[in-house]
């Protein structure tokens, strides 16, 4: 398979973010610039992986070495922080902006998806965008759907812009995120890559559609 050129990778990432954000932008009465702050925050929150997630996963891995815990449970224990840390990190600023009613000319329903899209783009650039190796179309396609996944998840995490919904939205986002990662890790050696990518794409689109519906519903 031929390598995807750098410029095309970035175009795909931006295209994915544009598609993911469009329904939220269309349904917002005010767009303003506040959502751009949230988008930037989402990108910056990628550092949570290095600062918190990986150290926590290393600690948990060390703690379970030599224990009687079955391998499926060990995998779940080590994967869970990926959902926990990333969803909390992405949602911190949007949740504060929503709770304090700091609108900055932007509809509150835009803060969550913008942070998710920022995180998704930054993660895609980090993992495959700048990778010097021969990155194929499958990896880029996967990132396309993962950007949509992150956008939908963070919209869900902050309850579509309604401050009280974070109490169930954030735990739901954490569980869905960790669940998809667990599924991918568990299936990677048992099914072919295209089947796995279809699962990732289907879950991503489902989460995104649900988050759009939630952002349109009233309390």
């Amino acid at each position, binding site marked *: 398979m031929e390598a995807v050129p750098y410029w095309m990778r970035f175009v795909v990432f931006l295209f994915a973010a544009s598609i993911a954000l469009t329904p939220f932008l269309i349904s917002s009465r005010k767009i303003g610039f506040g959502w751009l702050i949230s988008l930037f925050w989402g990108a910056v929150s990628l550092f949570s992986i290095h600062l918190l997630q990986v150290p926590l996963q*290393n600690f*948990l*891995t*060390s*703690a*379970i*070495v*030599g*224990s009687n*815990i079955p*391998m499926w449970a*060990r*995998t779940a*224990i*080590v994967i869970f922080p990926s959902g926990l840390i990333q969803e909390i990190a992405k949602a911190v600023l949007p949740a504060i902006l929503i709770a304090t009613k700091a609108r900055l000319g932007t509809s509150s329903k835009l803060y969550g998806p913008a942070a998710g899209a920022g995180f998704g783009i930054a993660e895609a650039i980090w993992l495959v965008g700048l*990778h*010097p*190796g*021969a990155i194929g179309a499958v990896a880029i396609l996967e990132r396309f759907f993962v950007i949509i996944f992150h956008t939908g998840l963070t919209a869900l995490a902050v309850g579509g812009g309604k401050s009280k919904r974070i*109490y169930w939205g954030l*735990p739901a986002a954490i569980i869905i995120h960790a669940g998809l990662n667990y599924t991918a890790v568990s299936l990677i050696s048992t099914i072919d890559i295209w089947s796995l990518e279809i699962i990732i794409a289907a879950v991503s689109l489902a989460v995104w559609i649900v988050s759009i519906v939630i952002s349109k519903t009233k309390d």
Partner: protein
Amino acid sequence: MKEIIIILLTIIVMIFTMNAGENTLKFAEDHALPEHDTLFYGLYDASDIKLIETIIVYDLTEEGVWITDFINESEILLDAVTLKPISGSKMFHNAGQAIIIGTLVTEDSIYAHLLAKNEKDAADSTAPFQHNETRSLPIPKSAFLHNDQLLYSFPAIDFTQKRHDFKLFVPASVSFIDVAAIIGKPEKITTPAGEFEAYPVTFDFGTVKQKAWYELEEPNRMLIYDNGTLQYRFEKG
């Protein structure tokens, strides 16, 4: 929300109390690695098809014990008495690059020096290195093994001790990981070299387990190593 916090706290407390992780690595007092030995292994895939052969060479010199693994393109020098790693190097290939990672162990630090060239330039000694970087870590207080010695130091381990906990230095990530090696009851196994009584050893890395079998009789040669994808099987020595 309160219930979720209580569940999370319970899980964290359980994890903290699961494994004390004390360092228990112990080599047998009257044992040493072979002074000069050449061991031949066949490498088999999951379908039991032999892919290639490799040779492991032990060589005792004035510097210490050299262990060379030809298929892994690695060599390591160990202190002949303590079996602590002194230095080593390993080549691997990644993303179109040929990468050599050298390791040097001092009294208080372990250094990993990474050199990377374009794969097509790797054979040309005049071609510049694209990447040249040294990183270091403090030596842990507890005993540790180098990744390239792990399998080949085990013939010197105290097989009467059922569990060994130690840290493993992984040069590719310049990090230490925790390992528990659990020694099972001796069992009969068959390799291309014949039938042997062997100690099964499970290397527990947390989310991955690997298994090896070591000959019951001294010098406790490694007979099979199974990393889940490939198997080394002892052919002759």
